[in-house]
């Protein structure tokens, strides 16, 4: 069994960056003495001290605001949202402040906001959301969403080294369920590159984060039925590697777009629109999306299951498209 979990990969990447570069600094609620609600920064305060692993009062807008200030003055802050859901408190700071400072004044704002996100853990409406869709619509914010432990490590490093504000969507359901053997030594995954996780010729399944694993599972089911699915993992959502997506669609002529974030106005809509604008003549079937319902994330297990995408739902959509 591979040795490094997705969550440990984030910890390792973060720790290595803090060792490598003394301007990398963490801040957030309960990240110091406690090591974070999910223990991503466990042991950090002992190694790096309380000034670089800063336990803040409870106020996300000011955590992000402080991070902006730190970034302006020569640091590379990594702010933790205890749950991704609470980033809504910092919406204004991110959208209007962090995202515009370079365009308006030429400042670089090298900061990362870590967002433990996603459902499947019965966290209810406010501990389960995927807020990337909101920020995707906003200029000046990069967004990454790893689906593997390797990418979790490589992308946290890539995000920290980037000179722009980056939202790092780490999926709670994957934390301890996804593992990789991670090579020794320093590596960073560059932002903005999608990856074909499984080549195939009949239908493209494009997603990110939690739906990449679901798509690979769906591809297995589909293979047994004679449908050869290509799985594209976006990895970075802004800037998006549309070339890889569109190349795949031009090859398979059929596409299912997936994400765990809600459907209406989600990132899937943009991908679909880009395909329709740039590859409509290659399409042999409707462009179909599999995403969460347009409701709050319900709490009770049967409701949440109905709400969320799944391998089975992706397979169903792929069948519809493949047999169209």
């Amino acid at each position, binding site marked *: 069994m591979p040795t490094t979990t997705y969550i440990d990969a984030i910890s390792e990447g973060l720790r290595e960056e803090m060792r490598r570069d003394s301007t990398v600094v963490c801040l957030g*609620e*309960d990240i110091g003495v*406690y090591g974070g609600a999910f223990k991503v920064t466990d042991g950090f305060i002992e190694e790096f001290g309380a000034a670089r692993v800063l336990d803040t009062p*409870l*106020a996300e807008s000011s955590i992000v605001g402080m991070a902006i200030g730190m970034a302006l003055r020569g640091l590379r802050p990594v702010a933790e949202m205890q749950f991704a859901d609470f980033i809504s408190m910092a919406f204004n700071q991110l959208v209007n402040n962090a995202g515009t400072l370079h365009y308006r004044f030429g400042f670089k704002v090298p900061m990362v906001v870590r967002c433990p996100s996603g459902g499947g853990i019965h966290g*209810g*409406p406010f501990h389960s959301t995927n807020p990337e869709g909101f920020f995707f619509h906003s200029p000046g914010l990069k967004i990454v969403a790893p689906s593997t432990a390797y990418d979790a490590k490589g992308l946290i490093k890539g995000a920290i080294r980037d000179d722009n504000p980056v939202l790092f969507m780490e999926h709670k359901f994957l934390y301890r369920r996804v593992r990789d053997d991670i090579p020794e030594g320093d590596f960073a995954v560059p932002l903005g590159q999608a990856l074909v996780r499984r080549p195939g010729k009949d239908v493209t399944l494009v997603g990110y984060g939690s739906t990449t694993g679901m798509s690979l599972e769906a591809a297995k089911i589909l293979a047994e039925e004679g449908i050869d699915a290509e799985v594209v993992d976006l990895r970075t959502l802004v800037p998006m590697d549309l070339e890889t997506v569109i190349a795949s669609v031009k090859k398979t002529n059929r596409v299912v777009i997936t994400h765990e974030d809600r459907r209406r106005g989600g990132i899937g809509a943009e991908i679909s629109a880009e395909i329709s604008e740039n590859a409509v003549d290659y399409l042999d079937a409707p462009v179909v999306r599999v995403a969460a319902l347009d409701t709050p994330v319900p*709490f009770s297990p*049967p*409701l949440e299951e109905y709400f969320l995408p799944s391998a089975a739902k992706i397979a169903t959509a792929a069948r519809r498209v493949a047999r169209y």
Partner: protein
Amino acid sequence: MASTTEKPPILDIPDEDYGDISTATMLDLYYYIRLAREMELRLINLFKQNKVVGGLYPGYAHEATTVGTALALGDDDVLLPLHRDLGAQLARRQPLKYIFAQYMGKVDSPTRGKDGNVHLANPELNIVGCISHIGAMFPVAVGISYAGRLLGKTVVTMTYTGDGGTSIGEFHEALNFAAVLNVPFILVVENNQFAYSTPTNQQYKVKRIADRAAAYGIAGEQVDGNNAMAVYAATRRAVERGRRGEGPTLLECMTMRMMGHSVHDPAGYVPRELLEEWKAKDPVARIERYLLRKRVLTPADVKDWTARLQREVDEAVEFAENSPLPQAEDAARGVWAEEGPAKSLH
């Protein structure tokens, strides 16, 4: 009142003047405090049996504060409890069975499984459930009180925050709005000395949170949050101020979180001595000793009550266990008021 942390520990409820508190009210305090305690302990048990869905944030040892505050409200007043305030829900007569059903994600909870644990409302009882985002309910409470004024009714609203939650911007905004509008709004600070793992000296540098009332020109009071009589009396003063048109109150109840932030949290960061000091001030034992001393209760009563409470909890758990899980397709329904029921406070 003086901070409880400054004085030597008061192991019993002192014989101070709590104003005119009837025997019936004292018994209500006792009943709901004990019910809250029994419920919490059972929830923890159910959690260990994997019957609780999601997290569990015990309000254990906060019962004097949660019950003492909520009992001081009238039926037309509105309660907006936070994540350690199941005691307040009970004091407001939220049926116990609904609470267990809610924690198990069952269809017979007021949210029909759509929301979990403490996010519990009851429009019929003028209870509004919180969202998880701390601070969000404060201005909502101000709006409810203000609506009361326009509708020709004095509606006292009461909501809660922990010590940590006072750092959020809406603490300031809502107290300031309430001050300017002079509405009957009570913000109860349950100061249990930690926000998750963060002690108060890393949260604020002011001595008492209650002193922040001066920054809004409103009434502020600090009270021993493990003394149910004192909490009730202070809340009643605040309610009366509100009814007299004297505006909002910031009421700080000093207590201690005796368990982890959630059941998952072993809370190794809390100094042992602090826990021991506060164990001696347990609010359930204190109100019981007080009522025995005052002969409001007899030892025989206590025994009867214990049996009765056990029965109530058993019945509620049975109700919840027998309640079905919701239908999966129900997840897609209910975003819009058109789908019903479209309830209001009253």
